[in-house]
């Protein structure tokens, strides 16, 4: 970014204080003033580059949004304990004895009542029809312990009430509620032949919004899991306690577990999918950029040809080649900037906060919003400038090279 700014600054100084620079400024002015006469051709540069930047920013914002949703789900001062080697919660089984050992670790924060802030959680799947197309998709049902609310201070109930422990009641995250049928407060749901009631909706502002929550014991009995759970979530006394806790638990011969901060755990869950989306976005972007470069070349060769006589005249009366080159480049890059702004603006207008869902590594839907960040927009402008530079350079050199006598005879 600073590089670009300093180049612009140097250019302005050059134009203001040197003879060649003032010539370049004069030629550029003529070029820009004649752009409206070449509306159709110039719009090829603008639209071509807008297409590249728009698609690129849109796809990358999808990756950024997915990553951000999962990143915000984790924190550095909460840990997740799963069975050794399980990778994800859905693969994991943590039995009652393990849970007892884990929650008694001294690094676990205790609440005012002297109980460890730990929640044994049971993640299971249910298949529900999606609102959009009626096809079944997996929603995660998270059975949580009584201390889950203390682990999730940001979680707010936005409709209805919390579920009551011991009852077949569920609350729906707002993402899940928006995605699936039959998740409104007051509706009932049949799972494994039992009827559950939706009693509330919650907003946690992270990946938990894609889940349904209920009481871990009740969910466990409905899914015939006995007293085992899939993971233990716990609050640390402080961030620094993590290493000690991890060392103590993984060397304990009674249990076989993996211990991660929830931040690391959720970052890992997003890594594969966001990488795949990025590869897709950049591949598509590169191919489109190649197409756009040729479009820009075409346009600028035509622009230079249309002004051949004028440029030859300027050179006949003593203008040098460099100002001509610079002016053509500036014209192309201004068009490119316009295209970049158009593309990034469209991507922002259409896709910022656009919600989508995909299958996360827990085999269940994760709802997330696209995030068009300033960094992505800056990146888009960089692409636009590079395309403009390459597309303008060769026509610019040609304009400066055509022999004056030939140029003067051009129609």
């Amino acid at each position, binding site marked *: 970014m600073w590089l670009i700014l300093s180049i612009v600054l140097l250019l302005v100084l050059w134009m203001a204080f040197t003879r060649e620079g003032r010539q370049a400024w004069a030629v550029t002015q003529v070029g820009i003033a004649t752009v409206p006469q070449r509306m*159709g*051709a110039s*719009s*090829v540069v603008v*639209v*071509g580059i807008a*297409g590249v930047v*728009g*698609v690129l920013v*849109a*796809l990358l914002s999808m990756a950024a949004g997915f990553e951000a949703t999962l990143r915000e789900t984790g924190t550095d001062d909460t840990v997740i304990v799963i*069975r*050794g*080697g*399980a*990778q*994800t919660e*859905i*693969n994991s*089984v943590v039995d009652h004895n393990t849970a007892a050992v884990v929650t008694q670790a001294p690094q676990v924060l205790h609440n005012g009542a002297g109980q460890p802030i730990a929640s044994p959680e049971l993640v*299971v*799947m*249910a*298949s529900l029809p999606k609102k959009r*197309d009626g*096809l*079944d*998709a*997996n929603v995660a049902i998270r059975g949580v312990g009584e201390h889950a609310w203390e682990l999730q201070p940001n979680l707010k109930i936005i409709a209805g009430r919390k579920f009551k422990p011991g009852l077949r009641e569920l609350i729906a995250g707002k993402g899940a509620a928006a995605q699936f049928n039959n998740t409104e407060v007051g509706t009932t749901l049949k*799972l*494994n*032949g*039992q009827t559950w009631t939706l009693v509330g909706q919650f907003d946690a502002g992270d990946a938990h919004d894609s889940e349904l929550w209920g009481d871990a014991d009740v969910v466990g009995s409905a*899914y*015939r899991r006995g007293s085992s759970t899939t993971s233990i979530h716990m609050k640390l006394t402080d961030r620094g306690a993590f290493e000690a806790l991890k060392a103590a638990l993984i060397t304990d011969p009674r249990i*076989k577990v993996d211990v991660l901060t929830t931040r690391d755990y959720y970052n890992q869950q997003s890594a594969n999918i966001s990488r795949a989306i990025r590869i*897709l976005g950049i*591949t*598509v972007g590169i*191919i*489109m950029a*190649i*197409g*756009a470069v*040729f*479009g820009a*070349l*075409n*346009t600028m*060769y*035509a622009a230079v040809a249309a002004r051949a006589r004028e440029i030859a005249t300027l050179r006949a009366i003593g203008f040098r080649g460099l100002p001509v080159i610079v002016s053509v480049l500036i014209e192309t890059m201004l068009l490119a900037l316009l295209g970049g702004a158009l593309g990034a603006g469209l991507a922002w207008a259409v896709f910022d906060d656009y919600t*989508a*869902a*995909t*299958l996360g590594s827990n*085999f269940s*839907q994760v709802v997330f919003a696209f995030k068009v960040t300033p960094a992505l927009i800056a990146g888009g402008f960089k692409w636009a400038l590079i395309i403009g530079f390459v597309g303008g350079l060769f026509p610019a050199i040609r304009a400066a090279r055509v022999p004056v006598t030939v140029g003067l005879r051009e129609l």
Partner: protein
Amino acid sequence: MKYLHLVWAALFRRKARTLFTLFSVLAAFLLFGLLDSVRAAFSNASVAGADRLVTISKVSFTVTLPKSLLPRIQAVPGVAEVSYGNWFGGIYQDPKNFFPNEAVADNFLDLFPEWVMPADQHEAFKHTRTGAVVGASLAQRFNWKIGDKIPLQATIFPQKNGSNTWTFDLVGIFHAKEKKLEGQENILFFNWDYFNEATQFGGGSNVGWYEVKLADTRQADQVAQRIDALSADSDHETKSQSEQAFTAALVSQFADIGLIVGGIMGAVFFTLVLLTGNTMAQAVRERIPELAVLKTIGFSSHSILGLVLGESILLLLLGGAMGMALSSAVIDIARAKIGPNVPLAALDLSIWLLGVALMVTIGLVVGALPAIRGMRLRIVDALSGR
């Protein structure tokens, strides 16, 4: 056709401009080929499974079903054969090496005639307790040969002794009969009996899903309903659907691939139409006196229309065909280098036909305005350059 050389000459009147436009068209159709290949890889995953049903738990495919259903499903009229399996989810060396691996009953492969394997290997699989079979492209990816030991790290099912490492003996390698099913070779199957005996949780009384072969494809819906009726209102209700429907629902959970691909293609083709349209308009504008000469020597207005349209369609066809040929080459190289794991399907005839249809349509659209302009020329005005 007899004017082809004329159209050709007109097209390359300005070589640089035509080449640049050709390359833009090429880039657009390269993308078209690649993206459609991605879409196809996700959507036509199962074309051969029309005579099979998949029976899973109604709650979710991650919930197991009791094995006691097996004889009852076998007894359902219209069912030819039943097999079952369980998702194992083992990791080979590194989670990045992901491929599906499943424990299956000994008759499982009999239900998949689209996969071929030498009979002796099939026999060996049935009789080797720790035996495993893999698809040819998976074997190629990790350089496995028959007789190799393949260790997998369990993520869901530790062994009774607490170990996460399961070691299998590779006894067979199967091939997909058709090239477009090659993507399905990326899988490992091992024996149910080994899984059943060695797993800590005694998976024995439960299976992940039932695979049902139909006696008559046309009865798919009735048979599915009969199977689901067996467990209606129990605590293990099932959901039976054709293999295709099952795959479609699974894919739609990843993302609406069609929507994303459609959106990108829309942006690409909109840009392309504008760009080539501009080129054609320039080309015709420059040649107005020439077109007037053609009219003077007796070309009808309709011939001029045809000439200009022919030129733009030819431009699109040339660039488009090269772009799609290039994407086909890229797909082949990617599959050869990275393995069949890349979600890219070989371009089949229907994609080529769709591509050609698009080329002709875009050629007509961008050529229309300049062509009409050429057709309506008045010779006197055009010759005098007015």
